[in-house]
């Protein structure tokens, strides 16, 4: 009961707060902007045809009414929430009248698959490599890994993706430039292997950046950890080094990394968005890119809302799982 009050409840409140701030921001941004999205959209729609001014004005009126922009801001805000709560994100302008939620639902599994795999790989390898390199910091291989990480860490995801494309797709031609998979979707080897084949470079570009980030944190945590008394005691007691490293040091450094994963999910998600665009991987990032290209304003709105709610929920779940890993939180 104590756990619920001191740990779970504040986190639930935090989640409500994040979702509230995020959704309010997406409501305010278009309305505060100097450019009217309706005019922008109409200009795009009527760009290749002439129209008499009266019917243009009528069209403008009806579009404003369609968005409910003729009502007071507070009424708009209430309608906005009630529509969101029903899961209604409006129709897509690019593929009218296909609902935005439908478009996102088709793309979502690709992003979740890519992001989930890349996050799992990069978190595990970053934590383990960082702990190893921190523990054996005088070894040659540890220094080589660290050099590599220091170079990879600051490079933006987009640039990593382009470097991989230039090397593996353009120069060596080992992997395809674009696409998600080949053949009919189904549980057969051909389809699954093509999934791996097409997903390799996009996943690798996220994994490199995210691993470097994790590695640097894990290494500095390990450096602090190996200075603590229990490690010296274990060393004096002739506990095998590998055992100290894996059973004690690595396990202790993992805890802050779990909390930090919740905070850094947003950054990894951004990386996935951009990677998908570069590799034309058919996920959320790619539909966002197409939406920017077509001026499909509702899809961009939908993706923004979904990513805010999605990232906040994922962070909440990680935070809620934390007591499972850390008994101290449970007993406090």
């Amino acid at each position, binding site marked *: 009961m104590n756990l619920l009050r001191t740990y779970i409840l504040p986190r639930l409140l*935090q989640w409500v*707060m*994040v979702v*509230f*701030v*995020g959704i309010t*921001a*997406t409501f305010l*941004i*278009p309305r505060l*902007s*100097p*450019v009217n*999205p309706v005019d*922008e959209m109409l200009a795009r729609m009527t760009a290749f045809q002439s129209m008499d001014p009266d019917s243009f004005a009528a069209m403008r009126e009806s579009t404003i009414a369609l968005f409910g922009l003729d009502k007071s801001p507070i009424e708009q805000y209430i309608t906005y929430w009630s529509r969101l709560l029903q899961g209604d994100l409006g129709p897509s302008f690019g593929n009218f009248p296909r609902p935005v939620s439908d478009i996102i639902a088709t793309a979502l599994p690709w992003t979740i698959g890519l992001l989930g795999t890349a996050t799992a790989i990069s978190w595990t390898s970053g934590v383990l490599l960082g702990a190893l390199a921190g523990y054996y910091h005088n070894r040659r291989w540890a220094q080589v890994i660290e050099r590599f990480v*220091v*170079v990879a*860490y*600051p*490079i*933006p*995801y*987009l*640039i990593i993706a*382009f*470097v991989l*494309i*230039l090397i593996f*797709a*353009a*120069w060596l031609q080992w992997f395809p*430039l674009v696409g998600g998979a080949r053949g009919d979707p189904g549980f057969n080897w051909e389809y699954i292997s093509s999934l791996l084949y097409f997903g390799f470079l996009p996943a690798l570009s996220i994994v490199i950046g995210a691993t470097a980030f994790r590695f640097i944190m894990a290494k500095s945590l390990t450096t602090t950890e190996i200075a603590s008394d229990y490690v010296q005691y274990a060393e004096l007691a002739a506990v095998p080094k590998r055992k100290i490293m894996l059973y004690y040091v690595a396990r202790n450094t993992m805890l802050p990394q779990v909390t930090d994963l*919740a*905070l850094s999910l*947003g*950054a990894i*998600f*951004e990386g996935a*968005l*951009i990677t998908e*665009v570069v590799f034309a991987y058919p996920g959320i990032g790619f539909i*966002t*890119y197409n*939406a*920017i*290209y077509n*001026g499909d*304003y509702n899809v*961009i*709105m939908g*993706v*923004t809302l979904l*990513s*805010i709610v999605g*990232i*906040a929920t994922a*962070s909440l779940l990680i935070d809620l799982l934390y007591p499972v890993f850390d008994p101290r939180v449970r007993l406090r």
Partner: protein
Amino acid sequence: MLTTIRDLFRFSPSFRFGSLILLVVAILVLLSAASPYEEDKLRRKVKRNQPPAANYVFGTTSQGQDVFWTLTYAIRNTLVISSIAVVIGRGIGVVLGMVSGYLGGTFDRVTQSIVESVIVIPRLPLLILIGAILRGSMTMYSLGIMIGLLDWAYPSKRYRAQVLSLREREFTHTAIFSGMSTIKIVIREHLPFIIPFMLADVISGFLFSIGIEVTLSYLGLANLDSPTIGTMIYWGNYYQSIFVGRTWVMIAPVVAAILMVLGFYLVSVGLGEYLDPRKRLVRLQAHTDDNSEASPDDADPRKEKDV
């Protein structure tokens, strides 16, 4: 200050290497002033799609631009955009973090819960949304302002943590008990600790802004007429340079971006080592132990403190 830089240059390989890279970047930026082409008239000046050769060092683009001279402008503009973003973002972050750290109480709790929420919200989708709405009316400067307005949450949290830890230090208590005024404590006692921290933080701000500029321009959400690292990649991609094998159009901005972020990052690693007292001690001990080039003067930690 100069002594600090000299010491960093001597003892920190990453600072040395990073500042050399930044020097190359700075030379490229300065060269943009000597460009034979004007910034807004780069197109259709040279033969299209030429591979790198003696007269076009990095080749030419499908729009008839000389890649090398475009790149000098691009690096400069990307740095201008990032500087605007850093000044705005860190400005808000420093003020908010320090005020909430010093004031504490309800103000602190309210700001903290807002900051925590803003940190979790992914910024790129929001920037894409704003960029898509403002598309067409976006300039280099508004892009910088926009990036800055979304990059203050994490810095403010870190400044607050710094202030909170400084407030608990022994010397703050001594100052309070000896009757020093709050303003004086902040300026005379705490600012010397905050400023070096700010320096490292500003660099990480540059890393973020460069990355976001490149990303947004690549998505076509910036002013595509002014050359930046991102717009160079955008146009290279637009003319499908990788598909048709004109990779030099892409390699130049990609390598330039890597050099820029790497230079900044290595310098900040060097600074970080200097700022972390534990690491500084380890380093100084290592140098007195093998005593290769360090004279005893350099190894005296008290000396560095006076700088």
